Every structure is written in C-alpha cells, then in structure tokens.
C-alpha cells in the first residue's frame, strides 16, 4: 500500500541531499570541533558553514546563530535566558494562548516561580487583536513571545506589526518560527525580532538539532552551563552532523521557498475545497483567509466523530495525519489551541490536521479525497452524537478545554 504522509508539521523526512552532507561526520570526519588537531579542524569549518546557511535564511549574521538540540530547547532558552538576564528590569511576559507547549509550559513554570504572564486571547478564527497586546504592556514587561505560525491551524501572526510595537515600547521580542521557516518569508530585520527559534526536523533536517537567533547585543543567560561552545552561549559538544544537515536544509528551504509555496498551496487548497464539497458538517479551524495561513496546513473538525478513530481509519489506507483530540496529545484534554478558539469540545476532539510537504504529490490529495468521505460517514454511523437531534454548536464558556 502506498503511504501518504500528510503530517509534515509533526516531522519531516530527512532530505537525501541533507543526509549526504551529514554522513561524512559520522565517518572519517568525527572530530570534536573544539579540538586543535586535524580531527577538530576537519569539522570546525562545517559548523561555520552551517551558521552562514541558517543566518542567510532569516537575514541574520552567522555570529547571531546558536545551535541547540531542538525547537523546545530554543524556546526554553529564549524565555528563561531573557528573564534571568533581565531580572532587575521586570518580571512580566506577554504571550498568547495558542503557543506551542514549549512556550506555554515554560511560562507556566515561570508563573510558579513568581513571574507574571499575560496570555493574549484569540478570536474564534485563532487570530490576535493587537490592541490587546498594547494594553497588556506594563513597565514590568520584559518579553513578548508570539509564534510566527501556529502548528495546529497554520495561522500566521502579524509578526512585523508586533515587532513595531515591541520596538516602540523597547521590549524584547521572541518568536517561535519553527513552523514558519521554509514556508513563508522570515526576515529578522524586517520583523524587528530579537530572538527566533527554528527546529531542524520540520524542514528536512534530522531530529535533535535546532537553532536560536540571538540579535547582536541581546543579553542572555545560558540555559545549559558548561563548556565554552557556541561562544559560551550553549554548552555541550556540538552535534556536528546534525548542524551540517540543518545548514543544508535551510539553504535548500530558502532556495525553494517561493516555488514550494505555490505548489503546496495549490494542493492544500484543492484538499480544503474538496473536503468542503464532499463532507457535510465540518468546521474549518483557523482563519478562513488562506493568505493568513501557512500554505501547507489544513485543520478541519468533522462533527460527531473523534479524531483518533478517524486517524486510525485513515492510517488503514496508509494516510498519516494528526489530531487535536485528547487521545493523541498524551493528556486528557483536547488541544489547547482549539480551546483558545472556543471550539466546542466535541468538535475539538474531532479536529484533524493535514499538513503537506515538499514530497507531497497530487495523487496523495486524490487519494485522501477518495477515501475520506466514506470513512467519515462510516465512523459517524457509529457515533451516538450523529443524527440524534443534538447540535454541536460553539460553546459559550470554553472552560472545559482552556488550559489557561
């Protein structure tokens, strides 16, 4: 059976060109980049090359790039490193209710330590009101953290405008760009970003490597203390192969970005339209304005059915997607992003994300559109909620699924 992978926002395959760049560092070129001898010299250049490649993708300087082990580490470092470095200045963070757990749970942990956090709400389409942001700013605010693109809905946030506000109030600005890079243009200068985080495995590099952009002159406490690697900003022997792969992946992603956007968007739009045409009782999660969404992401709730059972049924056809259902999140509650958008709780459990990637082809979309309607119907026929007279409207309070 042909496998159809539509879960690129979860992770992506390593691109063959990336693996090729990595392999020598698992073989002859195994040295520690801190070593002065031949084995060290063989690899230290690879780090600097990768630094240039990553920097080029986001319009930064190589010296502003620090390699880390994943997007989560980058987000933790951005937030904790800022608060520790700016201890005297203030204790207030502004973020949103739709951030990735790497940001949200970090903020929650900091609340327990006595920091103040404002979680900006979103509307039912998942969008922010920047007036809320300006209102939330106090003279104790030291950090604004807003993701560039949401991993579940694909919603894009107005990073340039937020950058302007941050600049106006002279507040440091962090953005989690893990889902944005390679899909839309990301420019740290234009957006006036101080800290930006990316993760390799979302863009064709391997799992276990990421990077944080730290604007020159930004005072940060390290998250990992120890060796003098990464100019004392991140201890630990560098993951040379992974870093070289990340560099190559960034170079490729940036070179192909515009073409990729066009190609993947056509397929995503066709999937979105096809589902709307063929499956009744669905709800789009995220903004209906497709220009304000990542080109590869579609999040839909299929009323009356639970997400995991839909996923497993699609899986039987070789189709890999993901869900905001509690059953796939490792927690007992459905996605906090659905909760933040006030999606009614059973609809939240039925939310299903299709995320396309560079290897997606037209036939994959055909297959989903062929299989999905009957599959949804089959599960609906099993559901006590279907055709029982009750409706699944948007809830009033959303309390059950709001994490904050």
């Amino acid at each position, binding site marked *: 059976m042909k496998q159809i992978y539509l879960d690129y926002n979860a992770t992506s395959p390593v691109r063959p060109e990336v693996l090729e760049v990595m392999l020598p560092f698992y073989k002859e070129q195994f040295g520690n980049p801190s070593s002065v001898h031949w084995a060290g010299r063989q690899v230290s250049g690879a780090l600097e090359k990768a630094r240039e490649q990553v920097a080029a993708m986001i319009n930064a300087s190589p010296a502003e790039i620090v390699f880390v082990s994943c997007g989560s580490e980058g987000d933790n470092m951005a937030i904790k490193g800022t608060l520790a470095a700016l201890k005297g200045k203030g204790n207030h963070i502004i973020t949103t209710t739709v951030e990735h757990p790497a940001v949200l749970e970090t903020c929650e942990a900091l609340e327990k330590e006595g920091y103040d956090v404002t979680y900006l709400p979103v509307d039912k389409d998942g969008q922010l009101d920047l007036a809320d942001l300006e209102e939330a700013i106090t003279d104790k605010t030291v950090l604004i953290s807003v993701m560039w693109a949401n991993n579940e809905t694909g919603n894009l946030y107005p990073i340039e405008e937020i950058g302007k506000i941050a600049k106006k109030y002279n507040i440091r600005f962090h953005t989690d760009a893990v889902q944005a890079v390679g899909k839309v243009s990301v420019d740290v200068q234009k957006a006036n970003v101080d800290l930006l985080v990316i993760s390799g495995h979302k863009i064709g590099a391997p799992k276990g490597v990421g990077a944080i952009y730290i604007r020159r002159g930004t005072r940060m406490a390290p998250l990992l203390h120890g060796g003098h690697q990464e100019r004392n900003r991140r201890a630990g022997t560098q993951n040379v192969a992974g870093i070289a792969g990340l560099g190559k992946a960034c170079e490729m992603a940036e070179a192909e970005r515009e073409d990729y956007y066009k190609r993947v968007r056509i397929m995503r739009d066709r999937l979105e339209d096809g589902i709307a045409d063929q499956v009744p009782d669905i709800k789009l999660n995220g903004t209906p304005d497709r220009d304000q969404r990542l080109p590869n992401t579609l999040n839909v709730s299929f009323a009356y*059915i*639970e997400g995991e059972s839909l996923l497993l049924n699609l899986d039987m056809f070789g189709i890999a997607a993901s869900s905001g259902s509690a*059953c796939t999140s490792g927690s007992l509650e459905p996605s906090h992003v659905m909760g933040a958008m006030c999606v009614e*709780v059973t609809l939240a459990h039925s939310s299903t994300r299709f995320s396309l990637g560079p290897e997606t082809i037209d036939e994959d979309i055909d297959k989903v559109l062929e299989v999905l309607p009957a599959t949804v119907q089959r599960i609906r026929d099993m559901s006590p909620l279907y055709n029982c007279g009750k409706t699944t409207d948007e809830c009033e309070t959303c309390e059950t699924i709001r994490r904050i």
Partner: protein
Amino acid sequence: MYTEKVMDHFTNPRNVGEIEDANGVGEVGNASCGDIMKIFLKVEDGVIQDVKFKTFGCGAAIATSSMVTEMAIGKTIDEALELSNQAVAEALDGLPAQKMHCSNLAADALHEAIKNYKEQNG
C-alpha cells in the same frame, strides 16, 4: 500502541448500531474527555438476547464497546453485571496505560443499560 485484538475490534467492530425495540439503554462518558458510549439491550427472560452500541471515541473506546457486546450476548443480566472494565481490557489483551481511564468504560455502559432495563421492567 494497540494490541492486535484491539485493532481487530476497532477495524471490524461487532454489533454496531441501535436496537429499535431495546428494553434497556445506557450511556456513559463525557464529551470533554472525548468518549461517549451508548449501549442498547434486548433482554428476554433475564438473558441478554441482543446488544448493540454506538460510540464516540478513540480506538480503545470503539474496541472496548465492540468487545463488551460480544461478551454480554447470551449472558444473564446478573452475569453481565459482573463483567468489569478490567475484564474487557484483558479480553483485548490489554490497553495502553493512558487509555484505561477515559476510554475503558464499556462495561459501565453495559451496567447502565441493565439498570435502565431493571427500572423499566421493575
């Protein structure tokens, strides 16, 4: 994650549907957990002649629902009242730990249906 038996019951669930002239109906679950199970019974002379289910829920919820209907058919209602969620999970060769709490309620739904039958048929 799931055992072969779970996947079998999930893929080919037994006894899906409603019983038009059911004389016992039970529903358990909670939408916010993402699991709702409804069991329909046809009881004659204290013996469960037919059982059907409808379930909103994950793979485990559907498999346990299917399994409980198979286990209940032919049993007296007193025997059926002794069926536990644990026994259903065991009959499926086990469930993932995180599924034991919310998704393993099929025996409860069965018991609710029997209670409903007893109430109706005094």
